[in-house]
Every structure is written in C-alpha cells, then in structure tokens.
C-alpha cells in the first residue's frame, strides 16, 4: 500500500517515501533479530518461544522477521471506538483524525483562581465535563492525577470520573493488570456486558515498553489482558531522544518502531486479530535544561514518519498534538500546540492525545484546552481541501454578479458562507469594539468561557444501575488493595 494521507479534494501529505519507510522497517527488524528485547514476562516469553523466537538468559528475546510480518498481517487495518451511548465515535482508519486530552498531569491551573495546584476529584470531574462539551475534542483521558484519593486507587477513580462525566470514549492508563481488569468491569457495566464491550469498545488502553528495548512486567501484563478482552491498545514507546532513543529522528523511529512491533507480535500471538493501535512518541531531551520536551520540530517530524509506517503496515495510528512546554497559556504554548496540531492533522494521525498538556506533561490547563479546541477546528477545516465541483467553482455566481457587483447580496454567498470556518474565541472585532468588550486577550476569553461551561454544561449521566455497579467495583478494589475510603 502506498504511504501518505489523502484528505479531501486531493489534499495530500506525506513525510517519508515508501523506500524510506522500508529502510526503517528493515532496520527495526534487524534490531529485533540481532539485539532483541528484554521481556520481563514469562507468559509472553513462552508465547514468543513457541512461535519460533530465540530466547537467551530467560528473558532476552530475539525476534525472527517472519513473526513480525505475521503479526502485521493478522492485526486489523481499522478499529472503531464507540461512545458510552453505543454510537460510533471514532473510525480509526484511513486519514481520519481525532483529538483527545492527556492523562495524569500533576498540577492543575485553576481557571477560577489562576493558582497552580494539585488535582482533586471535583477538578477532574469538571475537566472531563468540559471535554464532554467541546466539539473538537473526541476522546477523554484522565487529565489530572488525583491527590485526594488513596494512591493505589488513582487510575480506577479516574476512570469512574471519566465514565460518569462524559459520553465520549476514553483512553486509559492503568497502573497494573488488576487495575485494568477493574476498568474493564466498569466499562462493561456501562456497555451492558463484556461481550458488548468487545463488540463496541468504549476505551483504548495506553501501555508501553520502557525504552530502550525492554518490556516491563506490568506493561506486558496489560497488553495480554487487552488482547484477551478485545480492548484496543497501543504499545507506545515514550522516547526521550538523546537519552532513551537515538537523537536522530530516523534512529528514534527505528527503535520506537522495533519496540511497538515487539508489542504487536506478543499481542497478536495472544489473540490474532485483536485491535492494535500503532504509534509512539518522542520528547527529545533538551541538552541544556535536561527536560524531556514536547512538540519540538523533530518530535513533529517523527510523528509524520510513524504515520507513514502505520500506513505501510495498514494499522491505525496513535500520536500527539496540542501540547506545550510553557508554564502558562502564552505565545509559546499556542505556538507549540498549533504547529503540532496542524501538522498532526495533515499527517493524518488517527488518534492524537495530550491536547492541553503544558510544562512537558506536568501541568494541565483548561483555558489552553479551549484554545486548542479552536485550533483543531481551524485545522480540520483545512483538511477539507478545495472543492472544485461546478457549484463550488461558482461560475454562475461570478457571471451573475458581474463586473463591479458585490457577492454579499448574492444567493451563492448566503448558501455557502457557513461552510467557512467561524471563530468562537478568536477576536475579529474592530479595535473599538474589542476595547468596548474589555480589551481581553484570547487567554482571558478562554478562561471566562471555561468557567461558563463548568457552570452550565450537564453531561448525560450514567444510569442509577451503572452508578451503583461502579461504586461496587470501586469498593471491592479498595478492599483488595487495602485502601481507605
């Protein structure tokens, strides 16, 4: 299959040629074959051994290329994720793009007080409700790390809050296999059974190798559980170029691809045909500050490469957008986020997360999320390309209006102007009118709107029955992990 993303009306984007993609594929296979991976999981090692992989020292696994190619062939080329109401919400196929938030930021920039502080349950609930409201945000992640629940319960409590406060599908982080099982139980309760959840997935699992070239026990555990339950999952290296993956974009791709493929092989051995979302990320290390920074030009190009690899493998793709290293919603935040979002949209990455991340994933801001919502709207409009059917070419209208006329009074304008992008937050006023409205910056307008959404938006609640089932699952888990109420 040819690589590249064909959007609408001939708009096409490609980062790598097919030859380059094959070079990367071959290099990754060479690494898997000759360097292999350390896999801290007995069942996975056994699966690989009996499928023909070479194992040394108990957990060093060398992958023959035929295993990789078999896994690539057996994984589905498209995956549909459904919302809580059972309606299809995301078609992960072709060049379709979807956006969502990130998980587990430590700090919340409180839109009301402007304070940078820890997240509480009510904050996460509100943040999820804002996501539920925003038209351009397609899926939800936990956003904030809860500071007011028992630490061992964080991921479960976060999932309950996502389920209760939005109908949108979720991407989840789970600390371990037991946590994932409880999350599956909660999702199944909302869906009306595990079979139905398998038929219509409500969430995707986000799990990952530990670069370079290791699979920790928990990650692999979760990968196998996901395969077994038909829960869509990725196996996404979170590379830090220059530290855990090579500093060159090509080298980072070779290694991240090898790691993702190693996960795919295990996943498909466990359950051939189970849904797998291919992708990974790269936050290159800044060699002055030693921070893992998001959305550098190299990280954005890297994502273009991974999308082309996904297309070559015919797998849905996973990546990033709308994130920043800035500490506040300022010019840098919007610049970094906008570049990533527009490029990601053009790249045709199916699922992009971390929209709203600030301070390299340590802080989350809802006003920034709102600005991102507007940026995504603009980007999506551009993916429409230019329509060239007779009506859009407006030949009749041009003739009608003629020399010296005005299109404002023509029916063609009235009929089509709404196809054009309309701002919600961006200010298109005259100076006088902008001043009369309080001379507000975009961030100030975004903050006001967030507060208004928080006060007014009521997401569709879960039924009383599902609610009590969630409470039951959480209560059992608390006993199981020995947590207090």
């Amino acid at each position, binding site marked *: 299959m040819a690589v590249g993303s064909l959007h609408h009306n001939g708009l096409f984007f490609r980062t790598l040629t097919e030859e380059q993609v094959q070079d990367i594929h071959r290099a990754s296979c060479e690494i898997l074959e000759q360097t292999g991976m350390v896999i801290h999981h007995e069942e996975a090692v056994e699966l690989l051994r009996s499928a023909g992989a070479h194992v040394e020292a108990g957990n060093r696994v060398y992958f023959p290329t035929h295993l990789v190619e078999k896994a690539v062939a057996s994984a589905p080329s498209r995956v549909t994720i459904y919302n809580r109401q059972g309606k299809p919400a995301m078609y992960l196929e072709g060049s379709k793009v979807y956006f969502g938030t990130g998980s587990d930021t*430590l700090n919340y920039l409180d839109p009301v007080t402007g304070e940078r502080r820890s997240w509480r349950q009510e904050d996460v609930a509100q943040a999820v409700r804002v996501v539920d409201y925003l038209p351009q945000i397609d899926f939800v992640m936990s956003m904030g790390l809860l500071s007011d629940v028992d*630490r*061992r319960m964080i991921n479960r409590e976060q999932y309950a809050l996502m389920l209760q406060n939005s109908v949108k599908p979720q991407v989840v982080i789970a600390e371990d296999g037991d946590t994932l099982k409880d999350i599956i139980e909660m999702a199944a309760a909302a869906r009306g059974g595990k079979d139905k959840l398998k038929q219509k997935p409500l969430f995707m699992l986000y799990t990952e190798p530990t670069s370079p070239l290791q699979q920790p026990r928990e990650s692999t555990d979760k990968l196998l559980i996901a395969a077994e339950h038909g829960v869509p999952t990725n196996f996404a290296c979170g590379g830090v170029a220059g*530290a855990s993956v090579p500093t060159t974009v090509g080298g980072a791709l070779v290694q991240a691809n090898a790691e993702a493929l190693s996960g795919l092989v295990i996943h498909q051995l466990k359950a051939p045909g189970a849904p797998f979302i291919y992708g990974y990320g790269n936050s290159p*290390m800044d*060699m002055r500050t*030693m921070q*893992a920074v998001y959305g550098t030009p190299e990280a954005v190009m890297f994502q273009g490469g991974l999308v082309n690899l996904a297309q070559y493998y015919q797998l849905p793709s996973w990546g990033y957008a709308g994130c920043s290293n800035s500490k506040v919603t300022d010019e840098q935040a919007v610049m970094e986020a906008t570049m990533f979002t527009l490029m990601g949209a053009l790249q045709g990455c199916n699922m992009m997360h971390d929209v709203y991340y600030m301070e390299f994933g340590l802080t989350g801001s809802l006003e920034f999320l709102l600005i991102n919502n507007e940026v995504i709207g603009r980007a999506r409009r551009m993916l429409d390309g230019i329509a060239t059917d007779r009506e859009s070419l407006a030949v009749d209208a041009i003739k009608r209006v003629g020399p010296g006329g005005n299109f404002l009074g023509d029916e063609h304008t009235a009929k089509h102007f709404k196809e054009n992008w309309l701002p919600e937050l961006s200010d298109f006023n005259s100076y006088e009118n902008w001043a009369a409205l309080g001379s507000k910056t975009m961030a100030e307008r975004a903050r006001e709107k967030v507060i208004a959404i928080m006060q007014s938006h009521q997401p569709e609640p879960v039924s009383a029955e599902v609610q009590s089932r969630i409470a039951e699952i959480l209560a059992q888990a608390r006993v199981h992990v020995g947590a207090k109420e």
Partner: protein
Amino acid sequence: MAEFNKMSEMVIAGDFAGVKALTQKMIDDQVDPISIINDGLMPGMNVVGVRFKAGDMFVPEVMMSAKAMAAGIELVKPLIAESNMPTAGKVLVGTVKGDLHDIGKKLVNMMLESAGFQIIDLGVDIAPAKFVEAVKEHKPDVVGMSALLTTTMLSMKDTIDALKEEGLRDRVKVIIGGAPVTQSFAEQIGADGYAPDAAAATDLCKQLTAN
C-alpha cells in the same frame, strides 16, 4: 606543568583517546598518579561544570568530558592504594519500588561521577529492603532515591523508615528527586535534601559530604 594544562584541555574537549595517551605517557614519566587526577583530570572537569552551568556546554559534551576523565582515572587507579584514591564521596542511587523511570537518575549519576563522586547504581524498581542491604554492603556517604510517579513516592519514606529501623539512618545522608518530588515532601519524610535537577543534585551532594 604544561602537560597538566594540556590534559585539562583534552578533558574539556572530551578527547577520550588523547587523555588516555597522555595519562599513559605521564605514568611512564613517573608523574605522581594522584597528581594526575588532582592537577590534570579534575581541573578540566571543574571547568566543564562551570561552563555547563553557564549554558556554554551541553549535556552530551559534559558526558564526553566525563568519559575522557574516566579513561584517565582507569589507568592511574591501579597505581593508587584504595584509601588514597581521591573521591568526593560514595553515592548509592536507585529508582524506587514500582518505578521504572531512570533517565533522570542516570543523568544525576553521570553528573555526580563527573564531579568526582563514586556511584553505585542499584537500578530501577528498588524496594526498601534492597536499599538497606546495599547500604550495609557499600557503606555510602549518600543514598539518592528517584521517583517519577506519585504512586511510588511513598516508597521513599518506607526506605527512610527501614534505614532507621536498621540503625543506619545516622550513617548516611538521604537525598531524593524526580518530577513529582518537592522540597516540602523531602522535609515531610525526613530526607536530608532534595534537588530539582542533576546540576543541583551535584551541589547538594558536595554540600552534604563537606561536613
């Protein structure tokens, strides 16, 4: 001696092979091995530290300098009795139980090493009992714990408690770090120090081992 200056320059430039050759030549010329370290290798590395802080050098360049210095030290080490070996102190480090993040910890190690500390890295996912065992075995001056997950931070307190129980707490300084860790958390769990990055960790260790 001009050769010491040349050696320092080579360390600054990260000239691995050059440092090795010059160290060997000095050894052959009967230069005092301790002086090779103190007057040739270390002064170069000290300049590197200053330049890095000023933003004139980048992390990978610092690493190359540290590697060059280590190449020299490796050659002179067999010639020096262990007790005479100049060292800033011994630091035992590990990422705590349940946590696999180690990029930051490795950076801290490399920076400490380049400042003359001896590092014993236990690896990742290190339970309190393992820290205790290692303290008994290696008798470090400082124990450094790294955690990037809020869920694993508590294990730092467990380790400190375990050290107390074994009567080892007074013999070592305990420092902690990692993105979610703060100074106030360090105080809360009774650690001796916290540092937000690898350069600050080096200063902290110097300060804690000075007295």
